[in-house]
Every structure is written in C-alpha cells, then in structure tokens.
C-alpha cells in the first residue's frame, strides 16, 4: 500500500503543470478565475492547444484514435492540474460522451468521419438526452424518428442542452419503435445542427446566463449513416455513455482551486477587525469542508486504482458525484458568506473588492451540479440499489 504517486506520475504532473502555465492564455485563465463564462472561441482555442500537444484534448482517448492513451491516474492528474492551473473544464459532450460511443459502437466510416474532428476541436457537439417529460427518467422520452427512404425523420423536443447554441452536431436518443416499452425501441442518432427543421431556443438560468437550450426538431432528416449501433438498440449506447461521462466526476481539482479561492477571500475579508479566516466558527466550517475534500480525494484515488486494476469502476462513481458536487456547492456557499453584502451586486456589477465579483452568480449556477448528470437523488438510488443491493 502506498498513497504517493510514482516518480513517473509526479514527472507527468510537472509536465502538465508546465504546459498549462506556459500555454493557457491569460485572458482565459482570468475569466475562469472570475467565474465567467467563456466564448465558443475561447473554449476551442484551449482545446486546440491541448490537441496540438499530442491529443491531450482527449485525455481518456486511446492512442489508436489519436489520444494520449493515459491511465486513469494520469487522466486524474491531468484534469487536476488543468483545474488548479485555471484552465476551463473541457466540454465533455464530444470528447467524453459521444466519442467513446462512436469508438465502441460506431462503424469505421463513422469513426473516421467524426473522431478526428472532435479531438482537433473542429466540431462542437452537444447532447440530446433530456426532454421536458423525461429528465431523470430517460426511458420515457418521446422524440421520435420514423424511417423513410434511407433516412430518419425526427420530430420532437430536447431540453437542458448545454451550450447547444455553439454546437455543430448533436447526439440524440430518439424513439424509433413507438410500440416498444421503456428502454426498448430507442436509437442513438448523430444529427447535424445545420439540418433544416432544427430550432435552438435559449433557456436563461437563474444566474442570468445562457448556458442551456431547448432544441426543437421538425421533420429533421438524418441520413441512415448517422445511426450509431443497431436501430432500437440505442439504450446500450446510452448506458455505455452514462458510465463513461463519469470519469473525473468528483471534480477534485476544481474543488481544490475553489477552496484555495475561499481561503484567499477569507484571509482578505475582516470580521470585527480580524481576518475572517481566524473567526473560530468560520474556520470550523472551512476546516470541515477541507477535511471532507481530503477524504474525497483519497476515495477518488481508491476508485481509480480499482478501475486501473480492472475491478469494478461502475456505481462507485455515484458516490464521487454526490460528494464532489456537495463539496463544490458547499464551497460556493461559504464563499458567498465570506464575501458578505458585496455578494449582492449582480449581473457584472463589481462595486466591492475584486474577489466579490460574480460570486453570487457562481453560487446560483452551481446549484445545477446536484440536478444534472443524474440528480443526486438518482445517484443515491444507484448507490443503494447497485452497490448495497437494496
């Protein structure tokens, strides 16, 4: 038993750290540090820099598809160092979601057509899973595709589509057999966002951001070549995807970065003439979070290590999702408290200290963490039923 990283892993960490320090554009780092949303161009700029470094834009990708072929621990180190260095989160929809599905279930033509452009950040993908009536309960989705002359004609609506306004492609779960029940009769389609009949409508969230969208499909034609896997067997892809998107789900790197920010703010703010960080009650709340994060980091490494040994990765990721999102939310809440009344100015106003700007919007925005990607309630169901077998 050994909790230390190997020399090779430490060297790798240094390599990533140096890369982020040298290559991450200052403007992007600054926006991330202020909790601001990046433009499409900024996201792509960073992904391309990673791509040029040797396929680092696909940290989970095998070498066969142009990725770096990293172990789970290396991927963990990479994502942690990116977060600590102030890099933006990699947009997961292409790289972490649709790509593994195309690798596993797509044919050679699909792999050749789509994968290189995902890795090279030439095409932006978004996700067509949730529907107004099907959130956690994906099996009840109603967007339908009818086969007609070698094409699928798609009608319906997807929602909560993150950054769909930037997307070139969307991968969709659609119902292809209206008679089949629940998970059966669903197919996995790749759809060009420029197809006639697609409408993207912004959803403005409580923080005032345009991060999610409704996507409407009206007689949208999809070539048969863009069906992944077998027709009516899309649930296999869906399940596969759901388990793959969960790597690095705990967000340890981001939590560490935000905890450091919290400490920085609490050292700068004063309460009764002393640094807030020395207030015993505040210090205790902070320490509780810090200790929980220490524990979660080790729990995460334990899961990774089991994964590396090819033992079950699976439902343990739900624990990481619950605890990781709770911690990120708790940190953002304590940041709000640390900032105090200057957390109230909103929508870009920054009359207080620089560290106060945008913190309320960030707190509000992060409420999504316990809702999306399978709500934390659903994750607890998974823990109880899949791990504890209740």
């Amino acid at each position, binding site marked *: 038993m050994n909790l230390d990283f190997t020399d090779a892993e430490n060297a790798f960490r240094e390599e990533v750290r140096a890369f982020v320090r040298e290559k991450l554009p200052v403007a992007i780092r600054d926006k991330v540090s202020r909790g601001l949303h990046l433009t499409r161009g900024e996201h792509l700029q960073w992904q391309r820099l990673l791509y040029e470094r040797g396929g680092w834009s696909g940290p989970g990708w095998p070498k066969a598809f142009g990725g770096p072929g990293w172990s789970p621990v290396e991927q963990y180190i990479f994502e942690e160092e990116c977060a600590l260095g102030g890099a933006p989160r990699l947009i997961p929809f292409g790289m972490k979601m649709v790509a593994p599905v195309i690798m596993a279930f797509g044919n050679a033509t699909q792999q050749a057509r789509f994968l290189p452009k995902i890795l090279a950040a030439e095409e932006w993908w978004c996700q067509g899973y949730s529907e107004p009536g099907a*959130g956690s309960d994906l099996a009840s989705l109603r967007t339908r595709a009818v086969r007609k002359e070698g094409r699928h004609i798609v009608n319906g609506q997807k929602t909560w589509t993150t950054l769909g306004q930037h997307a070139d492609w969307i991968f969709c779960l659609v119902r292809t057999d209206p008679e089949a029940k629940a998970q059966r009769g669903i197919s996995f389609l790749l759809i060009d966002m420029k197809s006639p009949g697609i409408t993207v409508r912004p959803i403005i*969230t*409580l923080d005032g951001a345009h991060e999610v969208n409704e996507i409407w499909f009206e007689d949208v034609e999809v070539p048969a070549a863009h069906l992944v896997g077998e027709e009516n067997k899309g649930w296999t892809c869906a399940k596969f995807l759901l388990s793959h998107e969960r790597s690095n789900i705990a967000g340890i790197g981001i939590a560490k970065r935000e905890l450091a920010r919290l400490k920085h703010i609490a050292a700068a703010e004063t309460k009764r003439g002393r640094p807030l960080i020395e207030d015993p009650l*505040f210090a205790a709340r902070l320490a509780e979070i810090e200790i929980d994060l220490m524990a979660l980091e080790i729990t995460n490494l334990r899961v990774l290590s089991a994964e590396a040994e090819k033992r079950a990765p699976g439902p343990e990721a739900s624990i990481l999702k619950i605890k990781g999102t709770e911690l990120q939310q708790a940190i953002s*809440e304590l940041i709000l*408290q640390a900032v105090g009344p*200057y957390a109230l100015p909103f929508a870009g106003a920054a*009359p207080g200290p620089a560290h106060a700007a945008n913190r309320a*919007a960030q707190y509000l925005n992060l409420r999504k963490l316990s*809702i999306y990607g399978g709500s934390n309630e659903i994750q607890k169901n998974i823990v109880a039923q899949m791990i504890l077998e209740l």
Partner: protein
Amino acid sequence: MDFSLSEEQRQLEETVRRFMAKDYAFEKRRVIRDSAEGWSREAWQALADLGLLALNVPEEYGGLGAGPVDTMVAMNALGPGLLLEPYLASAVVATALLRECPQHAGLMEQMAAGECIAVLAHDEPGARGDPGYVATRCRPAGTDFQIDGRKCVVGHAAAADWLIVSARGEDGDIVLFLVPLDTPGLSLDGYPTLDGTRAAEVHLTGVRLPETARLDADREVLGRALDIGLAALCAEAVGIMKAALDATVDYLRTRQQFGQPIGRFQALQHRAADMLMHYEQAKSMSTLAAMRCTSKDARERRRALSAAKVTIGRAACFIGQQAVQLHGGMGMSDELVVSHWFKRLTAIELMFGDTDTHLQQFIEISAQS
C-alpha cells in the same frame, strides 16, 4: 396566548394579497425589473392608495399607527410577489426611524402619501452586519456639518428622495442626517442586485449639511429601527418560504417520472417534510421577532431577533435550495418564479447580518446576565 389575527389584520393580509395577485403578477414584475429605473412609481402610488405606506406612520402624523404584527402580516403577504419597490427600506425602516423624530412629521406624511421616499444609508464596507460599525465621519464646519465617507450596497438609493446617513461624530457617537439626494458631494454608483432590485454605493465627499438636517436620533433609535426592519425582513422571508414550499409540493404532485408523480417517492416526501418543518420553525420565530422587536428590554429584544435571524437564515437556505433542487432543471430556469424566490431568500440571508453573525450575537447576549 393568542396566535390569531385580528379582523383588521386579516383584511390587511387580504388587501395585500389581492393587490399582489392582481396588480403585481410575475410577468408584470419582470417588466418593471427590466425597466430603466427598476421599480414602478405607479405600483408605489397604488401601495400608497391602499394605505400600506401609512401603516407604520403614527396616527398623530396622519398614519395608521399600526404595530409590528401588522407589518408582519403585510410583509408576509408582500413576500411571494417579490416587490421591487422600497417598502421595507422606506415604509418600514426609514419610517420607524423618522417617527421617533417629531421634527420630521411633514416628511413622514409625504412618505405615507407616496410622494417621497427615504432610505437609510448605514452599512459600510467591513461592517459585516455589525450595526455599530460606522467609519463615515462627521465634523463641524462653521454652522454646518461636513460628512465624508462611503456607504455600501444601499438598497433603493437611486429611488430615494432622501437618504438617512449615519456618521460618526468627533465625540465618537453615531449621528444621523437627512440628506437630499441632490446634495452636492453626494454621488451614487448604482447597480442591480441578485434579487432583481437595485442598490448603490453612496459616496459622500465634503457633503455640507445644516444643523437642521441632523436627526434627533442616537444609536439606540437607529438600533430600534433596524430591529423593526429585521423583524419585517423575517416576515417577508416567511411569506416567500411558504410560497416556495407550496409551489414545490404542487410540482411534486404533478410532475411525473418513472410512471408516477415524483411526490410519491419517499425520499422526496421526507425532503418536503423537512422543508415544512423549517418553515414552521421560521414562522414561529418570525412571530416572536414581531412581538419582541419593539420590546424595551434590549437584551430580550436582541436575543429574540438574533435567534429569529438564525432560524430564518437556515430555513431560507434549506427551503430555497430544495425548492430549486426538487423542481429539477425547471428550478434553475429564470422563467419560473421559484428561482427568483430562491434569489431573494439568498439575499435575505446576507442582509441585516448573516446567520453566523447572529449566532455569535445570540451567544454574546445570552452570556450577559
């Protein structure tokens, strides 16, 4: 022991409720919020016409001379509609201050009629809920006073005709001045706040004021007005929590997943039960705050109010977060009112001293014997 409302209080509640439902619906509020001023003179006048602005004005000055329970009833009913106008700031806090200063009876009458608005500019950077923290300086300048300093996150400052500015005199005491908004040396730097209202940084640079601008009010009077404001804020929060709870329960009853209303899932049932318990405890403490906020026994008053703010802060956080959580993605949307309730509850937590500040105050007051 009697927790029932009087007939008048019931009517007051009904009046406010009807006004908010009819004349201040959520879509109308959105238009007001997005307007240049961010509040509506028309709505303000309507509140005046209903007598609501006169509620806290003593009868001798043409008001209704109501008490804190009436204010509680009004704030409770105003809460869910998320009023953007300075009711709490002007018709509660500033009025509570001015009614102890008889020389300003005329101003109060104008305020009651909706003709002018006064707002307390007291908080400063670094105060963090300590009402005794005032760094703004006041010194004699001939027969005048000169005021220099900065007030922060002053809600509704730009809507006000008058600011009531606190400053520290050369003898260390806190003094209050009534300052017209167009006074030379006074400047505002306005911005929206997370709950959809407007606030401003107030800069006072060499502001000259005559002796008559000085209020006949000391730190004690200021403290009493703030306590009345805190009790009213608690009542507003309770009104919002009730609305958020009701909407969430309603959503749980109607939203279907996995073939049944999600309200059939026991974990969500228990969460809703926890929300209700937070709400009931908050309502109890809001009632206590209303009953005690005018108490002459300062220790009893401060202890009850700090305890109330702790309870309400906790409840606001839990109910606000869970209302969003249980609404799922819909709870995150700007389109539904639930996220706006959450934002106002979040703002309330940070106002008048946050939860930990009041927890510590409660400990300190309790330790005094």
